[in-house]
Structure formats: structure tokens, C-alpha cells
């Protein structure tokens, strides 16, 4: 369980869940990008989100720069990023949203987790919620931009 208030995730905890998911899944190293470092990262290109429900509802978003999906898939499969087909690169974004969604509900719910996770879905990066509406963190994933957002939803 996280140390934030029950049912909440602070930005550092959210970042740590994403960093752990990337490292365990594909041995991709990521770190929190401070504002001035984040400005140097490539722009967002694609995004996916996944909803959960249970005692409360929420949505986990990930948005990434153009090369992120191929880079992670390449690391996972042990090939060069140029060998990753575009559909597999996009599927990697979906799967990471799924994995991170699972990590979030496990963190929120603990061992007796009551939350249910939906299916990930692709969405335009421009539709991601603003910082006012969510907990947001920017990561530098080996030179690619990865933004993770956690958005509580009305029951």
C-alpha cells in the first residue's frame, strides 16, 4: 500500500510504479524528469488509458513520444527498434497502460484488492487530462518521453 491518503497516489509513488513496471517488464531504465529536463524530451505522440472500478473509480493514462513503444518492445524482445513493426510498437503502449493500471489498483487496494481493471484503449495524446484534473508525472525513459497520469473519476 502507498503512504498517500487512502485511495490516492502521490506523484512520486505513481512514478515509482511506472519505473518499476518498465524495468521489470523490459529492462528499460526511466527516471523522473524535472521541468527543465522534461522540456528537452521529444513531444508526446501516442497515448493509451485504462479504467478501473470498485469502491472508487479511476483512470490511468500513459502518453509517450514517437519512439517509446518501439524502444520498449525492442528491449522486451531483444531486437533492434527498427525491427519492431508499428503495430507491435503501438501494442506495447496499450500493454504498458494495462500493466501500470494493474500496479495502480494493487497499490491502492493492497492484498485484498477490491478493484477491477478494464481493457486498455488507444486515445489521442491531446485528450489526456490536464494537471488540474489528475496526478501527473513526466519520465525520461532512455531519452524518450513518458507521461503517466492518474485520474480519479466520479462514482
Amino acid at each position, binding site marked *: 500500500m502507498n503512504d498517500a491518503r487512502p485511495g490516492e497516489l502521490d506523484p512520486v509513488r505513481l512514478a515509482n510504479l511506472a519505473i518499476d513496471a518498465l524495468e*521489470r517488464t523490459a529492462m528499460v531504465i526511466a527516471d523522473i524528469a524535472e521541468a527543465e529536463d522534461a522540456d528537452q524530451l521529444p513531444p508526446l505522440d501516442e497515448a493509451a488509458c485504462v479504467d478501473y472500478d*470498485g469502491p472508487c473509480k479511476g483512470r490511468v493514462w500513459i502518453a509517450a513520444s514517437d519512439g517509446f513503444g518501439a524502444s520498449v518492445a525492442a528491449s522486451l524482445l531483444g531486437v533492434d527498434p527498427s525491427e519492431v513493426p508499428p503495430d507491435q510498437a503501438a501494442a506495447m503502449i496499450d500493454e504498458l497502460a494495462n500493466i501500470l493500471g494493474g500496479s495502480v489498483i494493487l497499490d491502492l487496494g493492497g492484498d485484498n484488492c477490491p478493484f477491477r481493471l478494464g481493457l486498455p484503449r488507444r486515445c489521442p495524446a491531446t485528450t489526456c487530462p490536464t494537471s488540474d484534473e489528475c496526478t501527473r508525472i513526466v519520465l525520461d525513459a532512455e531519452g524518450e518521453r513518458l507521461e503517466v497520469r492518474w485520474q480519479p473519476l466520479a462514482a
Partner: protein
Amino acid sequence: MNCNVLVVDDSPVLRAAIRKVAKLAGVEEDQIFEAGNGQEALDVLETVWIDLVLLDLNMPVMDGEEFARRVRQNHDLADVAIVVVSTEANRERLDRMRELGTLEVLHKPFEPEDLRRIIGTVIGVAP
């Protein structure tokens, strides 16, 4: 080694990654089969004997829980080994999967070595 493994996951990139780990565990390339959801997995089981199913739970068309339930209801398939590889964290659902006789639950994100060990144990190869 004579052991057929079925990888059931709606993510093509995860199926490819799990296939790679299965090969590292000693499963031959032509003994690894894939399905993108529970219905496709049932279709595979109608044509090929499968020893081990590596099963995601949250999938479109037919999810992993429904797939496992149908497998257990089929007398001919009741002994097929099932290992859950999923982001699923809901306690009640995981309890239901255990009641359906799944051998292990490997939670995503997982380290490839954890999956290799499980496959090796199930198919009888020392990890």
C-alpha cells in the same frame, strides 16, 4: 521435449515475449501456440493437445476466467495445466481462478526469469 504450450494474451508483443521465455525454458518453437483471447484459445484446444496454458485474464471477446471455466467443464481438457499471467489484482477473481485449479498466478509486471522458472517447473525441467 514433448510439451505443447499455449500462450493466451490479447497483446501481440506480450505473446512474442512470453514465447521467447518459453523457448528459453526448453520448449521447442513448433510446440508453442498462440491465441489472442479465450475463444481463440478454445479453438486451438480443439485441434492440438496442450499441456500448459499461460493465460491472461483481461481480454476482449472471451476473458481468461470464462476460458478456464469452459476448460474445466470439458472432461477431456480437465487436466490441462493453467498458469495465470496477468495484471489482475482483484482478490475475489483470483480466488475464483484458484478454485478453477490454476497452478500459479504471475502478476504483471513480471521478470522473465520468474516465468521461465514456472514454465520449467510445470513441464518438468529443472530451472
